């Protein structure tokens, strides 16, 4: 049993009822977009109807760069390959200012990436529940230290040294969608120096 605030993810699935589709991915998440693009093409053939405009926003990562395959997958799909997270977020803002009723968002990537996109979408009035989310590649967690509020964007271990305050902090399952982070808390407060074995649990 996990904590109720811990987000759930599922495979992206093309939504034939949407009037417009915005597809976002980072690194290995590109595979999930290729799958949705396949489903969209199949839907177009089967339903013999246009599926509404598609936008693809992609951010290559050290883990994977699928930009060539995404670009060549379908003609008529507006594909943006962003140089960095900030570039992708501003491209997303641009797309969403032209969004219409029935727009669907599909996001695939690390948890930090997924929630950064959800939060940009939320600013423009898109409800969390209108965004499909799939976690791909690394299980690294974006984590905020509850003591000094410093965020480490990619924590892979159960316990880490906070880059803000230097405490050994333990990563909880408690998750804030507003901040897009898990919470970490001092692990040896009750017995200073007694730090449990550090293990890679979010590889």
């Amino acid at each position: 049993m996990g904590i109720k605030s811990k987000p759930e993810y599922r495979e992206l699935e093309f939504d034939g009822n949407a009037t417009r589709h915005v597809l976002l991915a980072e690194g290995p998440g590109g595979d999930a977009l290729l799958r949705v693009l396949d489903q969209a093409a199949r839907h177009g053939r089967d339903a013999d109807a246009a599926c509404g405009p598609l936008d693809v926003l992609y951010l290559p990562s050290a883990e994977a760069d699928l930009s060539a395959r995404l670009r060549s997958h379908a003609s008529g799909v507006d594909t943006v390959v962003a140089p960095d997270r900030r570039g992708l977020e501003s491209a997303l803002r641009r797309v969403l200012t032209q969004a219409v009723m029935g727009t669907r968002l599909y996001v695939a990537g690390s948890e930090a990436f997924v929630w950064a996109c959800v939060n940009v979408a939320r600013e423009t009035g898109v409800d969390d529940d209108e965004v499909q989310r799939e976690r791909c590649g690394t299980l690294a967690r974006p984590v905020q230290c509850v003591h000094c509020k410093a965020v480490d964007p990619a924590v892979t271990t159960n316990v880490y040294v906070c880059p803000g305050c230097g405490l050994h902090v333990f990563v909880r399952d408690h998750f804030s969608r507003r901040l897009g982070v898990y919470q970490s808390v001092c692990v040896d407060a009750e017995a200073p120096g007694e730090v449990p074995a550090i293990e890679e649990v979010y590889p």
Partner: protein
Amino acid sequence: MSEQATVAAPRVKPVETFRGDFTYSNSPEAIRRFPFPFHRDDYMYSVNIEPHDGTPPGSAYAPAFDIDEHYLSEMAERRTVLEEDPKRCQVLPYMMEAQWDTLELMMTSLAADYPEHFSLTCDGDTWTWENRLLDIRDTFTFKDADTLPLEPFEYITRQVQGDFTLHGQRNDMLYMDGGMVTCQADWSLDFDLGMNFYEWHGPVPRAHEMGVFERALKYLLTLKVGSPVRRLNWTMTVNPRMDTSPENYDKWGIDRATITPDNVGELAHLRVELQSLWRLPRSNAILFSIRCYLISMEELATVPKWARRLHRVLRDLPEDLADYKGFIGFRPTVLDYLARYDDGAATSPGGAPD
């Protein structure tokens, strides 16, 4: 709110501390009116909600918002916490209507329950608020935030004991849309802000599986204006420390290791939250009041029934709950202390002293 002033004019002590030298203590009168949370000799979660209706007269439950001998101390502690960490008070921008609702509810309630200490004069939208305990007198225009020195929610909750949270209601769900949280039992407003009802209760063990939160939410969604409700919650704390926040856990966590058989009576405290819930009239939001009371084992043992009962409750509490409530490490020491007062005699029903 109550029909008559049920607590005429509580004697208010000079400022005592909830940190450092911990000078806080309860007078015999404060002990007698402590909201002891156990109505039987055992404890399990339940949706133990009852009307917050001004009863029983003279008790801590009777006033809309209980003001007691610790008023000045708690307001001073709140100022200290906010100076160190201003994010302990946050309200999301669309909650301004609920901020005014809160201010109105608290001012009218305090003026009715404690006329010696507080008064409110309304001349149309021009209101004059007087708080003689804190030596405050302000005239302002209702619903014009520029006429107050602080936003309305922060202004008034700096003058009322207890933590407070604001909950917007949308699509049959409640959200954590604001709060003044400086004396909490280990949860972070800054982190939980914006969460839905299930998310912010995420870390609580067992209760989700028992369906407690589903029933509680369903009940709260239908809460009516003018019919507030209340419940009690409890935990154990070392030292009379109000600010047991996760933010400062790295500083207070060590306290748990300081309990010994010699000091347990003085250091171990039962911490009770008298929680009341109010539907606000204009915003349709819910105001959640979490009024915290602390009593040392020594003080508690002056009421024989409470010492007997607390011994039995703590002894029989399941491990995971003792762990969640943060006292699994010093439970044996507390039990040894309380066992001396438990002669095996039967206890009377209800929480009040015999």
